[in-house]
């Protein structure tokens, strides 16, 4: 056998002999988490699993669907900016914008097709842009503002629901009058 062929076989066998235990050790280390996930998957109801993974409770889903007509628009809003830094995962200034996008995606995919029209806004101007003429009573805002103030951007709103998430909260507002 040519020396290079033998060398390749030896190198290949050595590589696999090193990598297999390394990957095996990592998998064994992760088995506890896998087992815990399996326990939750088997032991919890779908609603509990959805709430744990997404932060969206059955009560919030019910409140959205009760307050919003099927052709209405749901806007996930958080006034903490960060849009210009969103795509740089290492930049903490983009974290608020990333959180809004994640909540938007979860809500959109969980609720589809009631409603179909879901959007997000990371500052007041973006929210105003989502409020179109004639959308009174058909626009619902999931408001991530943590300060104890009413939502007044782009119009007057009715308070619908408050959802505690850990130490934070999400409030649900329905547009009553566009301004």
């Amino acid at each position: 056998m040519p020396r290079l062929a033998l060398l390749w076989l030896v190198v290949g066998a050595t590589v696999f002999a090193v990598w297999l235990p390394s990957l095996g050790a990592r998998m064994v280390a992760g088995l506890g988490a896998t087992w815990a996930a399996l326990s939750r998957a088997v032991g919890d109801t779908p609603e509990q699993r959805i709430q744990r993974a997404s932060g969206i409770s059955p009560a919030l889903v019910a409140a959205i669907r009760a307050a919003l007509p099927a052709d209405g628009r749901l806007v996930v809003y958080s006034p903490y900016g960060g849009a210009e830094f969103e795509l740089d995962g290492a930049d903490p200034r983009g974290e608020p914008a990333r959180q809004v996008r994640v909540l938007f995606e979860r809500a959109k995919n969980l609720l589809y097709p009631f409603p179909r029209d879901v959007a997000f806004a990371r500052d007041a101007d973006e929210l105003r842009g989502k409020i179109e003429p004639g959308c009174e009573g058909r626009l619902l805002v999931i408001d991530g503002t943590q300060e104890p103030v009413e939502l007044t951007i782009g119009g007057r709103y009715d308070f619908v629901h408050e959802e505690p998430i850990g130490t934070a909260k999400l409030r649900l507002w329905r547009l009553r009058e566009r301004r």
Partner: protein
Amino acid sequence: MIQFVAELLLPGWMGVVLLRAIGLRFCDDRIGYLAWMWLAGCLVIAAGLQLAMELHVPVSFRWLVPVALGGILSRIRALPYDRAASSHGRCYALFVAGGVGLCLLFVAAGMERPCIEGDEGNIWSLKAKSLLVDWPAGFAAAQVHNLHPDYPQCNPLLQVWIHLWNGAPDFVHFENRWIVQFCDVALFVAVAAALRRRLPAIAAASLSSLLLLEPEFQGLCRTAYADGMVALGLVVAVDAFLRWRDGGDRRFGWLAGLALAFALWSKNETMLYLLCAGIAAGMTRCWVAPQRGGWKRENLVLLVPAALVIANTAIWNARFGMKSDLLGANPTGKSMFALMAEQWRERVPAMFAEAASVFLSLAHAHVVFAVLLLGVVCVPRVALGQRLALPVIALLGALIGIHVVYVGSFLPLRMHLDTSYARVLFQLLPAALVLVAAIASDVVGARTAGHTAQRP
């Protein structure tokens, strides 16, 4: 119970009838057959459901069309086959059964999280739901939030199959993944069978374990991402192609054609891989004599399923106005090629560094690519010889192609790499494992033959 049978056993039955139609039986490969069966069954289901949608069959009756398609396939006169049975040995079968058990553990653990995040929620699952509640008039408009509306439909159609048995529009958010997750289980089985065909049991088991322990594989088992489907299609295509070229058994030529079609219908990257295979086929003609008839018409027929899938996806995207972000449908408005011209100085060195980092990372099994590359350098007469030149060059071309796409990506490079690089590379990893095994088998075989030849 009836629901479970319908969701997961009917695809198996449909796979059996399609494989029977091309002449393949369980005895041809008692391990590999199970993976081929699942792949073939998924093809029949997806084709049947798309047909049902095009015929405007009411939602509650759509499941009947794939079943009817299976019934028609079961009436096709099977191609002749050899009754010789293959056996992998009982110990190896037990190893594979254990591996499948581990895969099922990951599948079940995936039930912890709903299918509403990442690509599985934003691309695949969203499109599946839309195929049920927006078809056809509102379908295009509903893709406004889909990250890649131009991706092919096999994965969403498979999820539609599950939704049909669970009710719509009150969608399930966990069970819809099962049929896709089982493609990842089938991937392990297909790799185990392909490796065992070329290596002794202990070596085949070691290399198969590498796949089983790869974190990307475990992640795919938990989710409805389509990358495992691509990997399944590619590895079955490579394995069946080599079986066909080695033994001249045309049934494996058909299996390779169906597997290629499955990969093409799973995700757009396969178009790149097919292009690389075409270039490799052209290149290798310079030093490898055409085998099994080369480009003869009877061989080109084997590519009909792949051609149908390509045409179907192209017509679908034209019909609904869906374009690829690589061709300019992105916030920059520039095509991948224009962005490449702008970004190559900065990104090519970064891609080399990333490739080196991932290929040599102890946290991933992607070192297989490095071993394959080393094989091309150390044993070129085998790796680029008559038997393996085409698939090896195609795979190396595909590897280069993936990196070129990142050079021309409109997304920030770090973010794009972090969210997809190891996963997309994984699509090629099982096929690379099989090629490494084939090279090793030929090298050792040549050694044995050489020793035998020297005996008096």
